[in-house]
């Protein structure tokens, strides 16, 4: 752009390359470690060239952390959370923007306030309600009518449990609301004149128009869901519902034996790959999604 002085350019490149080492260095170390034998990986100083034991390490990690089912669980729940969030966001924003009800402000604020209630500060009660979803319903019915119901629904160790508490989405709702607000009023009016009812308008016009929005949201939500840690860790005691992120705990080397970092890193590499691929391949969408959540 402005000065094209060789010195300044050289400095810029130098800093950018330092930055690249800072960012990619860890990735390279994870990768090389995952290809080395136990002996190589524990060598001091660390040898930065790849070895030949990658498949062996992956195999070991796969067994140790039970990665097959774990990755599958992660994939299923991430996709469900992603789709769920998009659907909820699109629908909620539709209700807020395209209908005039005094309650919409209440609803909007209720959704907004969830931003201030991160899981970390309500872990135990959330766990409680997941283990007994109808607890509040029973409590309310009992307080009002005195009748004790025996309604029960336990979400622990189930896909519903992994997904449902995570799909409420203030961010997505705002994003969709923002998008709807940019559409001209005449679009809805034209559809009304053409005889479309609200649901029809939503499906035929709003959803297809929001495709880019949807893709952007999908990338950030997939990454979000895949990287969930605390909730799945908390609510899956049954190993068959473990997600990859939780399974990673099994890869932490034990303190007593010689740490098998090569196996740990092979596992970590596989677990971190899917969101990385999404971000790298769909970077445009991802960045767009992320930046527009700022509003």
């Amino acid at each position: 752009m402005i000065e094209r002085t060789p010195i300044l350019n050289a400095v810029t490149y130098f800093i950018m390359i330092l930055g690249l080492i800072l960012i990619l260095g860890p990735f390279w170390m994870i990768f090389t470690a995952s290809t080395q034998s136990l002996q190589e990986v524990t060598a001091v100083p660390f040898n930065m060239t790849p070895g030949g034991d990658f498949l062996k390490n992956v195999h070991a990690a796969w067994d140790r952390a039970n990665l097959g089912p774990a990755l599958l669980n992660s994939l299923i729940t991430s996709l469900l959370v992603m789709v769920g969030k998009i659907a909820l966001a699109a629908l909620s924003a539709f209700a807020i923007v395209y209908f005039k009800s005094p309650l919409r402000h209440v609803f909007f604020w209720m959704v907004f306030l969830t931003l201030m209630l991160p899981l970390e500060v309500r872990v135990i009660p959330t766990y409680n309600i997941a283990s007994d979803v109808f607890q509040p319903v029973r409590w309310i019915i009992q307080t009002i009518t005195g009748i004790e119901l025996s309604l029960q629904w336990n979400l622990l160790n189930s896909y519903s449990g992994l997904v449902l508490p995570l799909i409420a989405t203030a961010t997505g709702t705002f994003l969709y609301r923002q998008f709807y607000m940019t559409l001209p009023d005449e679009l809805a009016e034209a559809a009304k004149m053409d005889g479309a009812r609200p649901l029809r308008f939503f499906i035929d016009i709003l959803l297809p128009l929001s495709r880019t929005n949807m893709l952007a949201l999908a990338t950030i939500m997939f990454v979000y869901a895949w990287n969930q840690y605390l909730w799945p860790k908390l609510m899956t005691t049954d190993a068959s519902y473990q997600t990859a992120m939780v399974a990673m705990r099994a890869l932490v080397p034990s303190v007593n034996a010689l740490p098998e970092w090569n196996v740990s890193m092979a596992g970590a590499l596989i677990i971190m790959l899917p969101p990385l691929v999404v971000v790298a391949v769909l970077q445009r969408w991802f960045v767009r999604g992320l930046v527009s959540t700022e509003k």
Partner: protein
Amino acid sequence: MNKRAVFKSWWLPVLFALPQLLLILFFFYWPAISVFNWAFTLEPAFGGAGERLFVGFDNFRDVFADSEYWRSVSLSLFFAFTATGLSMFIAFILAICVDRQLKGSSLFRFFYIWPYAIAAPAVGLAFRFIFAPESGLIAVVNTWSPDLWNPAKYGSHAMILVIICFAWKWIGYNFIFMTAGLQSIPRSLLEASSMDGSGPVRRALDIQIPLLAPTLFFLLVLNLTESFVGPDTYGIVDLTTEGGPNKATDVMVYRIVSEAFRGLNYSGAAAQSLVLIGLIMVFTFIQFRFVERRVHYK
């Protein structure tokens, strides 16, 4: 939020809002009410099934009387400010360089975003290896003198480790927003300033930073919030130090969750949770004030 063209039905919006409404009522508000309830009450003695005992602010008093708690608060503060500062500083330098749009810049940009994709626990595990005392990158210093670096043993080392993890992961996020912010600064402004004879550092100080101020402020508040109460902090600490050694990295989020987990003191954890919720509200409020101010820059 007003549209001229609206539909008339009253029950359709309710139907559309219902799924999300139920989810937030069940999984956000009901638990939040429990937290509130627990924070001001105590379990009846001997785990009786009776009503919980209302104790006013006793739980808070207990929490605040505990020196461990204050230690955790100061650790959190230290962690949050250092990690935020480090991450934003590096991201800013990189963003400024990339914004010069030299040949190949877009390739650098492509990679700088990557850390955001990596889950905090994975970052924790990877850096635990990279910074392990017995192998990895840094272990070599221990061959010069034993235990020159050992995060498993020294609290300060452990703190450095978690700070590095958090800062590294958030470089990606900060970088994305800073480049977006820098891109929105009109080129003509920079050109005008260079016509006035300012060098790149002057320009950064006089033009880019002031114009980027809203973005930087937004990121500052967000980074602080996230490092205080965010899931990333929890995930990183849990996979690297587990709050140790000797609670040297027992930051507030980690403490609340692990205390709640151990199930010893729900009421105490609830009181601490309320404090954190209050903190988030303050941060959000600041953020909002700032959003209003931002309008002037646009």
